């Protein structure tokens, strides 16, 4: 018994484990793990002082701040509107609901470069939407605000898609109980429905954030790419690469991976806590 439990693989009569497992490992190793390991080794090979000199370069810090800041704002916007859209799609029946539901995944299917030039065309000062903001003195395209707009587009589906199935599963009886006990509708939604959605909302927020931090294609068209102002970290990596400054590019990449890892780990820990607190698995 103990020897079976210690064994790497439990016995099975199905064939092909060696072949499929070996192929999976070799493919994953060559395509994914090897290049990423080289990236990590190269950044470690820079040495402690050299790494921090490159990583704390003011232009790099400004780019990282914009990438993480704009991503957080975009994820927060999608948290609110994603919940609202999921609510409308799950709870209400109206003409065009199925079409809207299908359209939610557009940002996954539309290449980011296409999204980037299309959003720029709309939110530029003479664009369909931008023209209404220009007289108010608000510039959207070619500013950090433009980056936020692009990131909202790119990360829109995550919150909707994580909240939808949980919302559809929720037992309406608890809402009925709240209503019969005299709670207003708003109070019921706030105190009864929302808490059980917290873990799903957090998961959606995290996915949206992770996607936004790494996004490149859509942002570079709309943000204007002014150093220290509207230049995102992935773009700075590309710029350093074009200057053949590989150490700087590697250092920025290592910083992005490091901060993302700590950030996502923290959010996942909060998620684990909230699942215990609100007792609803996603």
């Amino acid at each position, binding site marked *: 018994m103990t020897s079976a439990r210690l064994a790497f693989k439990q016995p099975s009569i199905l064939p092909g484990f060696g072949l*499929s497992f070996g192929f*999976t490992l070799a493919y994953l190793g060559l395509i994914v793990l090897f290049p*990423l390991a080289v990236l990590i080794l190269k950044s470690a090979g820079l040495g402690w002082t050299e790494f921090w000199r490159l990583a704390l370069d003011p232009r790099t810090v400004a780019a990282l701040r914009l990438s993480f800041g704009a991503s957080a704002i975009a994820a927060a916007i999608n948290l609110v509107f994603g919940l609202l859209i999921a609510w409308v799609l799950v709870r209400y029946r109206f003409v065009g609901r199925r079409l809207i539901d299908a*359209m939610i995944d557009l940002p996954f*299917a539309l290449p*980011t470069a296409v999204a980037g030039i299309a959003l720029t065309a709309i939110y530029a000062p003479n664009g369909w939407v931008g023209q209404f903001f220009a007289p108010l003195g608000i510039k959207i395209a070619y500013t950090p605000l433009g980056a936020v707009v692009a990131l909202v*587009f790119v990360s829109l589906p995550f919150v909707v*898609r994580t909240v939808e199935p949980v919302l559809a599963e929720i037992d309406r009886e608890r809402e009925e109980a709240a*209503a019969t006990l005299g709670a207003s509708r708003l109070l019921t939604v706030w105190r009864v429905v929302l808490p059980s959605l917290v873990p799903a909302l957090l998961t959606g927020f995290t996915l949206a954030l992770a996607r936004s931090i790494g996004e490149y294609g859509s942002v570079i068209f709309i943000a204007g790419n002014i150093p220290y102002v509207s230049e995102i970290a*992935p773009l700075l990596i590309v710029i350093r690469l074009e200057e053949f400054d590989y150490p700087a590019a590697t250092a920025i990449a290592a910083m992005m991976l490091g901060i993302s890892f700590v950030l996502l780990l923290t959010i996942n820990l909060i998620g684990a806590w909230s699942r215990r607190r609100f007792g609803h698995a996603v």
Partner: protein
Amino acid sequence: MRSETIAASVAERPAKAWRPATSETPATRRVLIAIAGIFLGLVLLLPLGAVFAQAFSGGWSLYLAALAEPDAVAAMRLTLLVAAIAVPANLVFGVAAAWAIAKFEFRGKSLLVTLIDLPFSVSPVISGLAYILVFGSHGLLGPWLDAYGIKVAFAVPGIVLVTIFVTLPFVARELIPLMEEQGAGEEEAALSLGASGWKTFLFVTLPNVKWALLYGVLLCNARAMGEFGAVSVISGHIRGLTNTMPLHVEILYNEYAFQAAFAVASLLAILALLTLALKTFLEWRFAGDMAGARGH
């Protein structure tokens, strides 16, 4: 007498704005639907409309001219070639990974599943950078490959490799949850009845997962044809040689050839709409045959 008035008042009530206690007033509903509609209109529909409006701003003849231009045709050809290699490669990988992970119990399985998802959590630019560090002329393998006359970075093989990297998880993550749910019972039955391993796979496993497989391939293909960041880093932007369609869109746009840029972009938008339509159809028609189909 009194019971009559109560009955009358109860009967009257539904005539007023009656609603179940677990729903909102019709007015609230309409407002919420309107807000969702306006938000989605501004963020999703307007950009899509803008692509086609700009593409046809010069009429059909200019639209077709932009698509028939040699560099555009070369870009389309390269995009098709890259997808034609990357998608089947990841299809084979996805099936193999799902077979090993879903049909067998072994140690470190969850670590393997996490590693398969890794490309989704790495910025495409960073994955492109990793490939430059391996295959670039100052990279780990670059000089050695150069000696044999093999170019990977700033050439088509590099584009294919990063595209495989970026789209690696799509097929596997559709198949793994479904095949785990289906278990190994049917395969065990086929084997005990004397079918060979390959025969069992072809006639028992494959028919059970074909729609999920198609779903994964669909998403994989859309991403493979549309990938920008990773490909942009590794391609070197050589016109007519290493430009995929998204890169060609960027070049045209940066040269202020807006109409041409949007014309090529409109083809990618049509591809996206076709993908969405097929995906929705599969979800609607074969929902039961696809475990984790939603939520991508």
